[in-house]
């Protein structure tokens, strides 16, 4: 895999994302620099998944904007929390990973010998070559995650978003996948990962965004993950306020400026 040219930044401008007019994240402003390795952390309901969904385009902003400096949404590789995949579908590990080559082979081109080699190489990186012929339904949790990472590898994307990639996965797999993430960072790709294990974050992620429906702190991990910040993040409400009034923070801002 050749190192990519400079990956673009992601810019959030006063972004509000949510469901049914209730914001899951409020007024996010900030920049993700090129080639950054950023952990997105926060308590349950903080809006981490929502933010990632907003970046990939699954959710339209309720207000504000996200801009991806020159890159289209198709150039982002996204690993969601694994709910939508039909594990009983009769597809082999090899074929599933091969889908990662979509940008190259599209809907109709065949898999060439060179492509096949790349697929095997990806499987080898995650240690799944012996299982290549198995159906995905027979994989363990950890093996399944590895398979999805192999697919991500093949996508060769400039921006990679990972939503809770280590939930319910064995420690050996976690260690291997963290090494893979480090490699991506080394290759200059921009990586965002929503995580819940603070120790993991402190050990492997140089930058952190602490989210609790709004930005609590954003910067180097050391500065962000302080006891005070973590306490603040826990205080902010988890549930949607069913009787919320229309948010008037925008109007306040306008009044201040005026």
């Amino acid at each position: 895999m050749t190192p990519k040219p400079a990956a673009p930044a992601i810019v959030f401008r006063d972004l509000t994302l949510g469901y049914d007019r209730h914001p899951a994240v409020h007024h996010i402003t900030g920049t993700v620099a090129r080639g950054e390795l950023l952990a997105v952390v926060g308590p349950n309901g903080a809006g981490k998944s929502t933010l990632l969904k907003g970046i990939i385009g699954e959710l339209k902003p309720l207000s504000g904007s996200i801009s991806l400096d020159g890159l289209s949404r198709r150039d982002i590789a996204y690993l969601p929390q694994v709910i939508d995949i039909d594990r009983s579908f009769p597809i082999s590990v090899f074929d599933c990973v091969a889908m990662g080559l979509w940008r190259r082979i599209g809907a109709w081109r065949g898999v060439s010998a060179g492509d096949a080699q790349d697929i095997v190489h990806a499987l080898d990186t995650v240690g799944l070559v012996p299982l290549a012929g198995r159906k995905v339904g027979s994989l363990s949790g950890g093996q399944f995650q590895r398979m999805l990472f192999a697919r991500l590898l093949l996508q060769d994307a400039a921006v990679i978003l990972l939503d809770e990639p280590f939930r319910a996965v064995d420690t050996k797999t976690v260690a291997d996948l963290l090494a893979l993430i480090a490699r991506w960072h080394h290759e200059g790709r921009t990586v965002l990962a929503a995580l819940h294990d603070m120790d993991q974050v402190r050990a492997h992620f140089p930058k952190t965004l602490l989210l609790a429906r709004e930005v609590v702190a954003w910067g180097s991990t050391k500065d962000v993950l302080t006891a005070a910040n973590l306490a603040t993040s826990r205080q902010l409400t988890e549930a949607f306020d069913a009787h919320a009034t229309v948010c008037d923070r925008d109007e306040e801002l306008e009044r201040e400026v005026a």
Partner: protein
Amino acid sequence: MIDTLVQPFVEFAFMRRALVGCLAISLTAPPVGVFLVLRRMSLMGDAMGHAILPGAAIGYLLAGLSLAAMSLGGFAAGLAVALAAGLVARSTVLREDASLAGFYLVSLALGVMLVSVRGSNVDLLHVLFGTVLALNDAALLLIATIATVSLATLAVIYRPLVLECFDPQFLRSVSPLSSPTHLVFLVLVVLNLVAGFQALGTLMAVGIMLLPAITARFWAEDVSGMIGVAVGCAFAASLTGLLLSYHANVPAGPAVILSCGVFYLVSMLVGVRGGLIWGFVPRKHLEA
């Protein structure tokens, strides 16, 4: 023995035509059925079958037992329901199953009412039960054309369709083909039902689409395998059904579908993958 199997087709043109028609359907409907089953949309096939009937009925009301009118009407009705259901599912709180149920029920009730008000209910029964024994040249041509178009289309959308079933979110993230693929697939379902209803009637057309596909689950490991088994099963059932109708004096359409049913039950018992009987046979586990 061979004589019993072959003689009816040698002696009678209508048997040959029935066989050709059934074989064409067996080639095109089961692959679509496989995807319906894999996407857990099996009952949608049945719903679409009911949605088509009013369209065919309206076609009949306007132009009598005209192939063109009934096929067009059926196709239009099926498409309208499928598209409306898809649209509603994507833009309101309703999920796909609820929105489809809503539309096909309305369509069905409308069809029944229109026919009762305007026409005699006699020929509607023939629309329901089909006339595989009376396939004229036009009907055979229609079925053959639909089969060709359907197979070609399926070949083209195969990969996006598989991905759509397996991991739709991934497809959405790498390609704009997600919605079009879904739409084209629905069109294929409707087209095949229209072909099936010419041969077997609307009640049975769904049968030839789904039963072989369901049966294939007990034999094949992957999608292409399932398609192969489903097509083979449908061929065999067509042959069996027509021979039964000939030798045992039973209506042809239901005979074909009941043959499919028998294959299904047998497969459920002894199928290589998950047949019930293997639960009782002790087998050593593999090395790895």
